[in-house]
């Protein structure tokens, strides 16, 4: 089931991304963007980066996509017609996309991914270190979120206190600004 989802979610993300750029209605585009964020967030959660997944949900979907929606709703955007897309920009887009793809493929080629590929282990994406045994997850697997919790609350609580003070300022500040 997990492996199936690991294959399905990136595919859905790609499909949603294509629909973002080819959607007629800008609001539909933003909704598919939310779909992209959701699928990528699920994928990140499945490979063990739980904190990043939750961050994607809160920040990307909760703040940025909402911002996009508000802007799109408030502005009077003309609906795009696909057939009217200028073909002048196609070569430039093709060059950019192929260069990015080439750099991604070349990076992946440098990784030695052994046949017992453990999809949870991101260390295989670092070219020079991928030949080492994944010792960190052999004994005790600590979730990403758990590690962050330990760091924030046990190892460095003062940083949490200072961040809390900044949040207090973020609450008081708009009162001062808008009063």
């Amino acid at each position, binding site marked *: 089931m997990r492996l199936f989802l690991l294959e399905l979610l990136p595919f859905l993300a790609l499909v949603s991304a294509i629909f973002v750029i080819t959607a007629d209605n800008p609001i539909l585009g933003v909704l598919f963007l939310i779909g992209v964020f959701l699928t990528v967030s699920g994928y990140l959660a499945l490979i063990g980066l739980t904190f990043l997944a939750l961050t994607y949900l809160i920040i990307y979907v909760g703040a940025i996509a909402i911002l996009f929606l508000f802007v799109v709703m408030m502005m009077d955007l003309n609906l795009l017609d696909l057939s009217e897309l200028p073909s002048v920009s196609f070569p430039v887009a093709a060059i950019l996309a192929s260069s990015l793809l080439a750099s991604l493929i070349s990076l992946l080629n440098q990784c030695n991914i052994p046949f017992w590929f453990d999809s949870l282990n991101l260390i295989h994406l670092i070219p020079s270190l991928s030949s080492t045994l994944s010792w960190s997850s052999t004994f005790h697997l600590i979730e990403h979120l758990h590690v962050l919790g330990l760091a924030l609350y*046990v*190892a460095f*609580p003062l940083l949490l*206190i200072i961040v809390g003070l900044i949040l207090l300022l973020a609450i008081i500040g708009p009162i001062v600004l808008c009063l």
Partner: protein
Amino acid sequence: MPPQKVKTDYEPIDTDPHFTRVVRYFRNSDYLVWATTTAFGPAFYYLLEKGGRVPSPNLGFGLKLSACVGAVGGFLFAYQRSSMRFWGWTENLQEYDRDLREMRQRIKEGKPLYGVSRMSEYAQMSSSWMSRYAALRFSAFPIFNFVNHNNHGVDTSRYYKDLENDDENEEKF
């Protein structure tokens, strides 16, 4: 990771004393400092009041608020002074003898030296990271030690010298 060894003028009693211990070991001068600072608050406010031409409308509320602030500040002042005695940074002969007596009494009664805690060893150690020498930064954050932990950074063997029942030297570093 053992706590940092700091060169002190006087013999350290405890680098991370518990809150109740520090408050119990307040000297009379500490209480005097607390009372003085509490009185300083409203006095300073009254001085500032005198510095204005027009009498401000809520003098009573201001005096009460500054008395609260003075009380808090005075307590932090007294706590800081008592803590520095525990660390061995200021003169602490009285506290040293009293601590020796109390700890030996505790050993005779069979109680653990620094109390029992429901937290795990690691949690006790990590709480001591946060609260050790925290009284130095009282100007910004008031962080006290409410945990009974065993890493106080001192050699506890002095409690066991000349005692009838000699346990293994619990050199907790």
